[in-house]
Each structure stands twice: as structure tokens, then as C-alpha cells.
């Protein structure tokens, strides 16, 4: 789960991490009493706001309102800006970087920091990034902060504030089931205070059940993805036109790869997982059809999944929607032959391998 900046700030504040004052607005008029001077920022879930013109400065209420009006309604990436956040302009002396993520190989949280904040961390040379692991289960020990402070080489007063913020970030990381907590820039102000200039937070989707308050927050999903998510279906919309549906994440990825390698362009990642519930298969297909694919390639390698039940769901969905999209199916597994019959009865094409299926789907796709 990703969070709008203002929401991330709110959660940071809850954990005692200093963030600038700010107000949220859905219209210029909403900005009655913004902190001044301020920076008015588009609230979108993608990066690159600055370049797109989604960040503006204001010294008066009227300027702030103008900025808000200019930004609201703007398109940034796939999103239309619906809200802006007017945030106290900080008087920054130095920009640092601080984050906690997960290091898969080390199986431990990773604390990263740099005195070269304010830019994308990927663009900072590795020798200017301090990386220290946080021991799992025992948690953040003083030595981690000691090493961080020493290697950053910050003055004592700044270092102690950074340590305090790092400690609170780790509490947030654990307490909120975060995948990423990032402050960039972590601003050292001219008056000596250290404040989170920006706040990035990504929470583990799998921990949604522990944070029902987050479940309702808007995510960077397309409307169709949102619909699928609500039904518990793993569905991602991609740039291409051929609908790919398979069972299992790896096989779905491989199916898309083969489609693309055969000259097609995969337009959906739809993973049925282990399900053969005909109702769910039907719903998944309905969502897929709404994406208006030029062809559909269904690739099932069944373990438990019953191929015939899947086939039934598919044919029912196509029939119910009255869709005339070409469907190529490659089904292996339980009741394979029965599935082929059902599909053939509905005018669909059965093939033996992924490659054949991909080739046929590419060949049969309708013109856009």
C-alpha cells in the first residue's frame, strides 16, 4: 500500500517524527489559512511531480490558492490531481537522506542514510551512502545509531536528532508493517532543527488485515485493478492489447514473456492462483473483458485446479458479456480433455504449448 504524502506525514507525526505543518485542499478556496510561505504539492502516488509542474511555491494566501488551482486537475502520469498539500516552506541548511527498507539477502531491515539528500538515492554514489542492518527480533540497538552517526560524520547536535528520528522510523517500520519508510530530504534547518522534508511510506499489502484503517485509502490502481482487488483477484493492467490469464505468478509472467517474444503485447496480468471456483473464474474473465483485449490467451497448468471448471467459468463469462474476442486456451491438468470439449463447444481454440498458444493469440487478435 502506498500513501499520499499528506497521509504519510500524518503517520510520521503519530510516531513523533518531526514533519512540516501543512494543510490539504481539494480546491483553491479550501486554502483558508495555509502556512506561509509554503510549497503547494500535487498529491499523486507517482514520482516526477516536480518535472510535471505539480509543485509550486507561494508567499501569500492568494498565491497559494492560485498554485492550488493550477495544480488541481493536472494529469501526472496516469493520474488526475484531486488534492494538493500546502506545506510550510522550510529554511533548509542541509539535505540528508534516511530510509529503512528490507534487505532480502541479509533477511534484515536495512537503514540507509546519506549526507547527499534531496536527490533520488539511486543517483548518489554508493560511497556516500551509509548502509547498516537492523538486527531482526532484537531490534534497533544503540550501536546501529552510533555507527550511523559516525559514518555520516554529522555534528553532535544534528546526529542526535537524526538518531532519534531513525529510532522512531524503525518503530514506524515495525508498527505499521512498512516495506519502505523514506525521508528525502531529511532537512537540517538553519535554526538547527532536523525535520522530515518529505515522507514516503509503503506498507506491506499482506498486512492490510492488521491495518484496516489503511484498506480504504486510495491506491495507485486503475479502476479495473481496484475492482479486481476488491474481489481478491490478482490483476494488473499493462500497456499491451492481448489479455493474458494464467494460474500462478511465475507462469503468468512467463506467459506474458512468451506473448511478447512472439510479437504480441501483453495487456493484462491476471493470475487465477489455485482457484477453480467457476464463479471467481467468471468474475476474473469479466474484468479481463472490460479491459477490451484484442485476444485472450488462457494458460493453465493445473495442480489442484480443475481445468473443466475453469473452462466452464470462461465460457459462461464470454457468453454473459456477449464478447466476440478470440480466445486461445492451453490447459494442462485435471480433466484436461473435458475442458477442451467445453472450450471447443464455445468456439475457442485449444493448443498444446505456451509457444503455440502465444503465436495463435497474436495471429488471431482483432485490429485495434
Amino acid at each position, binding site marked *: 500500500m502506498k500513501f499520499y504524502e499528506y497521509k504519510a506525514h500524518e503517520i510520521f507525526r503519530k510516531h513523533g517524527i518531526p514533519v512540516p505543518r501543512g494543510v490539504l485542499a481539494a480546491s483553491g478556496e479550501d486554502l483558508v489559512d495555509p502556512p506561509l510561505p509554503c510549497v503547494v504539492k500535487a498529491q499523486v502516488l507517482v514520482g516526477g511531480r516536480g518535472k510535471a509542474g505539480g509543485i509550486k511555491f507561494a508567499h501569500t494566501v492568494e498565491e497559494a490558492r492560485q498554485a492550488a488551482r493550477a495544480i488541481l486537475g493536472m494529469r501526472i502520469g496516469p493520474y488526475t490531481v484531486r488534492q494538493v498539500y500546502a506545506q510550510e516552506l522550510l529554511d533548509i541548511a542541509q539535505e540528508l537522506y534516511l530510509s529503512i527498507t*528490507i534487505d*532480502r539477502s541479509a533477511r534484515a531491515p536495512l537503514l540507509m542514510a546519506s549526507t547527499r539528500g534531496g536527490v533520488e538515492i539511486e543517483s548518489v554514489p554508493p560511497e556516500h551512502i551509509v548502509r547498516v542492518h537492523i538486527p531482526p527480533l532484537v531490534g534497533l540497538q544503540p550501536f546501529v545509531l552510533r555507527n550511523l552517526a559516525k559514518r555520516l560524520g554529522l555534528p553532535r547536535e544534528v546526529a542526535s536528532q537524526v538518531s532519534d528520528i531513525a529510532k522512531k522510523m524503525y518503530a514506524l517500520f515495525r508498527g505499521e508493517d512498512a516495506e519502505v519508510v523514506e525521508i528525502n530530504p531529511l532537512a537540517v534547518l538553519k535554526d538547527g532543527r532536523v525535520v522530515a522534508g518529505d515522507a514516503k511510506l509503503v506498507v506491506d499489502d499482506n498486512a492490510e488485515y492488521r491495518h484496516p484503517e489503511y484498506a480504504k485509502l486510495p491506491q495507485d490502481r486503475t479502476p479495473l485493478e481496484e475492482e479486481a482487488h476488491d474481489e481478491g483477484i490478482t490483476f494488473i493492467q499493462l500497456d499491451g492489447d492481448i489479455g493474458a490469464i494464467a494460474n500462478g*505468478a511465475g*507462469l503468468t*509472467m512467463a506467459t506474458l*514473456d512468451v506473448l511478447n517474444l512472439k510479437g504480441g503485447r501483453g495487456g493484462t496480468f491476471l493470475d487465477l492462483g489455485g482457484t477453480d471456483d467457476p464463479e471467481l473464474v467468471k468474475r476474473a474473465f469479466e474484468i479481463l473483458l472490460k479491459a477490451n483485449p484484442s485476444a485472450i490467451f488462457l494458460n493453465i497448468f493445473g*495442480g*489442484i485446479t480443475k481445468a473443466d471448471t475453469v473452462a466452464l467459468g470462461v465460457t459462461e463469462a464470454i457468453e454473459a458479456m456477449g464478447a466476440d474476442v478470440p480466445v486461445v486456451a492451453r490447459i494442462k491438468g485435471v480433466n484436461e480433455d473435458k475442458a477442451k470439449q467445453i472450450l471447443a463447444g464455445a468456439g475457442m481454440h485449444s493448443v498444446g504449448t*505456451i509457444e503455440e498458444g502465444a503465436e495463435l493469440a497474436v495471429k488471431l487478435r482483432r485490429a485495434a
Partner: protein
Amino acid sequence: MAVLLDKSTRLMVQGITGHQGQFHTKAMLEHGTNVVAGVLPGKGGQEVHGVPVFDSCQEAVDVTDANASIMFVPAPYAKDASIEAVESRVRLLVIVTERIPFHDTLDVVTYARAKGVQIIGPNCPGLCTAGVAKAGIMPNHIFTPGPYGVISRSGTLTYEIVDAMTKAGFGQTTCVGIGGDPIIGTSMVEALELFARDPETKGVVLVGEIGGTAEEEAARFAKTMDKPVWAYVAGQTAPPGKRMGHAGAIIAQGMGTAESKVRAFAEAGVPVAKYPRDIPELIRRG
């Protein structure tokens, strides 16, 4: 011999009375697995396909001497059930459950190491030592005994590849589904180390995918092995920033791309298949 799973494995099934638990217990028994116990709190005293059910892992181990466990327990209860298994002194724990919060997995994996328990998964299809025993959910019919190990981050894609191997006459020692989550108990390189030491295994097939650096680490290790390794990497055409089904399958901050993995394999002299079913052809070439 094979790895992790053999005739001496005495398997316990946590969550045995559920739909999945019952189904796979039957399939594991059919594969010849010595399934000695099932666990579900409150269902002690029942039987599932002739396997006695206990209220706790400890009772199951005390009575049946189970030394391994496979877990079909919903994600919110998975941490509890995993620690319970670890405390009951099994040596191996296969966690099939998907969608476990990774902070929970982190705790479980760390504690299991303290207790010397090997964890496979979570979010994995488990283990199968062809024709000997299965602690997993793979279809039995795709396996045939032979000298090749398989390590995979994926489920059905592995079945696809194992099926192709079997049809081409390349049988398997053990197939290890390590799982698709960012934090897993046994990494690709750790599984590869096991195969490197296994005298029965003559070569290893790696089924990787985008996300993380597991393939790169495995490639570095493969270079030091005196057995051939072959690989397939899923997600070669996946767009960055999208989580492709598996929690671990994401290209983020330029990390975890298929190109990086394919390059690492190439540098290590590990042939990479273009299509999944090309793996047998690569093995044939040696």
C-alpha cells in the same frame, strides 16, 4: 539421498483438516510420503486419510516422532503456527501459506535459525523428492526420479518445467520450491549449496524471476560448482514498478531486472532458456 526430504522424513501436516490440507495430504500419501500426523487445534482425535490429528505440534511430535512439517494455515495465524512447529523440534518446516506479512516471516525465519530448523517458503509449492516423498502441493504425475535438482521461486511455472524435463527423460532428485516472497527461509543460493553437496544430483535447474538479487547470488555460487546449472528467468518483459503477483517479483529502483539476472548467469557460464520448455534442450547440450 537427494536433499532435505527422503525416506527418513516423518511428515506432520499443520492445518490438515482444511480443504487444502486434506487434498494435499492424500496426494502426499500417494507419492509415498510418510505422513505421520496432522495438527489442528480443537480437532485432536480425528483422522484424515488415516493420519491421526492432534491439537498441537508438540503432541503430534511426542506421539509420532514427526521430524518435518508442512503448513497450510491462513496467513494471520501463520507466525504462531510456524513458531509452534519450530518449538516442537521438527528439523524442517515447509510453509505453503501465501500473503504472510513479511515482518512476521522475518521473525519466524530468524527464530527458526536460532533453533536450527530449516524453513522452505513461505508462499511456495514445497518440496518433492521424485518417487520418494513430497512435502508440497505439486502434482505427483509430473515427476520422475533422475539426477537433476530443481530450484524455483515459482509454483505452476515449475510444474511446467519439471513436466518438460520428465517428458524429455530428465528425471529429478528433488524439486525445491523456495517461494516467491521477499523474505524466505531458504534462499536460492542456500538450496543450490545443498544440491552441490548431494552426490545423487548431477546438475541443477534454476527457475528464477524478476525482483531481488537471488539469481545473481546463485549465479556467483554456480561458478564455483563442478556440476552444470541451467536457468530460466520469468518476467523478462515485465514493466518496472509493478508487483507481478508474487510479493517478491518487482523491479524497484532499477534492482531485480531480468537483464541483470540473465547477465549474471551468462557471466557464470549458466545457460538461460528463452522459453520455459527449452530447459530440456539446454540439459541435452550439457
